[in-house]
């Protein structure tokens, strides 16, 4: 009886904390609910006589993984993410109904079927004699040696992958990417100034993720081609940013009034100022 009370209590906490993870505005709170969820499951493992994995669950999930999540939240910022809107939108209700259907199906199956299976070697007597960890270790290092090795390889690969990703982002860390239109710019199509990347669009006439525009030496035609390409850009994210961008036009650059008008329509701010020449 006591056991049942404990089980239902743990189950209730697990379900509620899971719901808490999903339906929570604050990412940090979600992470903490996740911690609670993992811990309850660890207790359920204890109830199922799986003490070794219960401990591992607390160490790996509740410890390492949740902490990792919190680190990332710290790096990225807890404020980012979707504005918590209308939970009961049509789409969400549809999705919840889908979830309930799945639950119903599985539940029906669980209660209508009897699990059959031969008894294994891990009987309570064996466990009592040798100890639980030893029994798992025996299976792990005899029958499942090869998968165990593969998991080890996978972990190594994971470590290397993460290191590579971290380094990669170091190399490409530019504070600002500038699209330059400079007809007198010879040589390479891009230059790096400290943390600023300057790319000459006239030499590399494709769209890329820039956040600043400088027009140094260019004709009306060049600018027209540039603006036409931006107009046709299908990337929604970039499209949102163009109206906030700054476009600097060099006074040496003799552009017609209609071109200026076009630029003003397209970018948030059009300045006339001296522009750094590419071919310095």
């Amino acid at each position, binding site marked *: 009886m006591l056991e049942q009370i404990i089980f239902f209590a743990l189950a209730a906490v697990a379900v509620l904390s899971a719901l808490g993870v999903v339906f929570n505005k604050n990412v940090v709170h979600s992470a903490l609910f996740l911690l609670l969820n993992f811990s309850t499951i660890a207790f359920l493992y204890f109830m199922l006589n799986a003490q070794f994995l219960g401990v591992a669950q607390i160490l790996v999930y509740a410890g390492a993984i949740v902490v990792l999540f919190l680190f990332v939240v710290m790096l990225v910022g807890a404020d980012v993410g979707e504005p918590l809107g209308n939970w009961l939108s049509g789409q969400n209700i549809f999705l919840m109904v*889908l979830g309930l259907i799945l639950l119903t*199906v599985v539940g029906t199956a669980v209660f209508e079927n009897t699990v059959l299976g031969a008894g294994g070697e891990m009987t309570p007597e064996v466990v009592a004699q040798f100890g639980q960890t030893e029994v798992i270790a025996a299976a792990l290092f005899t029958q499942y040696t090869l998968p165990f090795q593969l998991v080890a390889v996978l972990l190594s690969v994971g470590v290397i992958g993460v290191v590579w990703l971290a380094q990669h982002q170091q190399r490409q860390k530019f504070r600002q990417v500038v699209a330059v239109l400079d007809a007198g710019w010879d040589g390479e199509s891009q230059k790096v100034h400290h943390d600023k990347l300057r790319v000459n669009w006239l030499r590399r006439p494709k769209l890329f993720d820039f956040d600043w525009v400088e027009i140094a030496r260019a004709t009306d035609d060049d600018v027209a081609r540039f603006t036409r390409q931006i107009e046709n850009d299908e990337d929604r994210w970039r499209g949102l940013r163009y109206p906030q961008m700054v476009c600097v036009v060099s006074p040496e650059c003799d552009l017609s009034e209609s071109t200026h008008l076009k630029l003003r329509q397209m970018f948030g701010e059009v300045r006339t100022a001296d522009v750094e020449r590419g071919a310095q």
Partner: protein
Amino acid sequence: MTQLIWLTIALPVIGLLFNGILGRRAGYRVVRVVGPLVVGLAFLVGLGAMFETLARDGEPVTVHLWTWAAIGDFEVPINLLVDPLSVLMVLVVTGVGFLIHVYATEYMIHTGSDGHAHPDRDYTRFFTFLNLFIASMLVLVLGDNYLMMYVGWELVGVSSYLLIGFWFDRPAQEQDPVDLGDGVEPVKLTPLLSPAASGMKAFIVNRIGDVGFALGVFLIWSTFGTLQFDEVFARAEEINSALPTVIPWITALLFVGAIGKSAQLPLYVWLPDAMAGPTPVSALIHAATMVTAGVYMIVRSNALYSLAPGVSNTIAVIGMATAFFAATIALVQTDLKRVLAYSTISQLGYMFSAVGVGAYTAGMFHLTTHAFFKALLFLGAGSVMHALHDVIDLRRMGGLKDKMKITWITFWVGSLALAGFPLMSGFFSKDEILAKDFEVSPLLWFVGVVTAGLTAFYTFRAVFLAFHGAPRDRHLHDHAHESGRPITFALGVLAVLALFGGLLGLPTWLGLPHVLENNLEPVYEYMHHADEHHLSLALEATLMAISALTAIGGIVVAYVFYIVNPAIPRNIARASRGLFNLLANKYWVDEIYNAAIVQPALQLARAMSGGIDKGLIDNVLVDGTARAIGRVGRSMSRLQDGYVGHYALATFIGVLVIVSYFFLR
């Protein structure tokens, strides 16, 4: 030498490889030695094999080279069969082939308008193909099974195609109309096909026959379970009594192949056009050797043909009909090589009439002598062409006998042999055929004799027009000259052979030895012998006298017509212009075939290519499939909107469906 018989094939192959790969770099001076040399050496090997075969009384020997393919119990060994028949063919092919190679070394050197001699642009290519032909022909005659024979059969077809179209860049030629004098409209002649078109025509017409041949080979395989000559022939009689219809079918199908290859009615049309090739080719392939492959095949298969009397009789009738039909066309041809081409068709008809009545030896005998004298005649015609800068129209020749003595004399020898003048080689062989025909059917004999008269007439018509009388084209005549050494050498040797080739088969009824008859005996080991009845001595003598008189009569008529009073033939032609027109234009057979078969076939092909191939297969099936997949792909790619959430939703629904299926079914 018997065990080394493979050298006869290997040597031309060496020549072919050398000329084909290194020839151009080595230059024509090397090629002109290598080309004939390999064939000459092959001839020597053949000669050695002949002496050994004679020494062991013609006992056949099978030389196993290697096993080509073994599939289950179906085995294709590459064996060469050395018996009197194949040795005879090897000697004819390599012997005549060697002389023609020597001849060609000179013939393929043209004298330009500047008076300088220069080798043909493709001198090495010519000898490469010529060597290829010799090798292919030897594969055909030496193979000991029908499969190798078929391979050789097709290979000679390819060589023939390559050599007819040798001057593939030459255009089609108009022919001058035949002027019949005042008041009568000249007879227009159809233009000659270009060499390239002639080659294709030869190849395609041969294909028709080859389909029959291939089917025949298949039928042999499915009936006998083997393609080996000896096994097939040994069991032929037993099979015939069990399945009486199958042997006639096999022989008829094989004969369809022979009709194509040996230019018999109705598939003879390619041979006259094959004259577009260089003259040595006409002499070697289209007179002496390849076109006789059909005769060889029937003689080789005598065990089968002797079991199918109905088919054999048909062969005899078709052969004699062809002989007569072609001879009538040859009467009025104005092109010297075409006269000889129709003559070849006609003589092949004689051979088929011989093998059709079961006179296999007589057929082989005529094949051999014909190879000598017809090669000689073609080479003589080539020599004339060479002297006259490729002019071949009889109407522009005349009076050449003083300018080209050797050519003139040898041409006379060849013509006498062809006409069947007494004691010449053609006399004995043709007379033997006619006598055998008489045994079976006097009607056959009668047509044969008439044809013999026509043969003598048209042959000497050509001789008198070309070499005698006054020159008709003064300019050509002035520039004519005797051809070089290699040409006269080949003509001389062939003239000797044409003179004395008859010694191979002297009439037995006079008590004289018939060399071929005696030695070919082992070839007929499995032949089914029908009742034989021999003609009386007196009848034989009468028949021989009649054919001799016919030949002489034909020559005399030609002499009267073209030397004594040239007005006679023209008057006859004027009087019967319609008949003349019909003959000069070859009974319009080409035109009839063109309208009845070629054009419908082309239209069908066009409809197939435009409607079925382009419209249905290309457009609907191939492109349509691609278009449909592209369209489906484009519409499906709209599902790939890049939003991970949507992908996850799709996965979730998929899982839901699968789980529901497994849990709730």
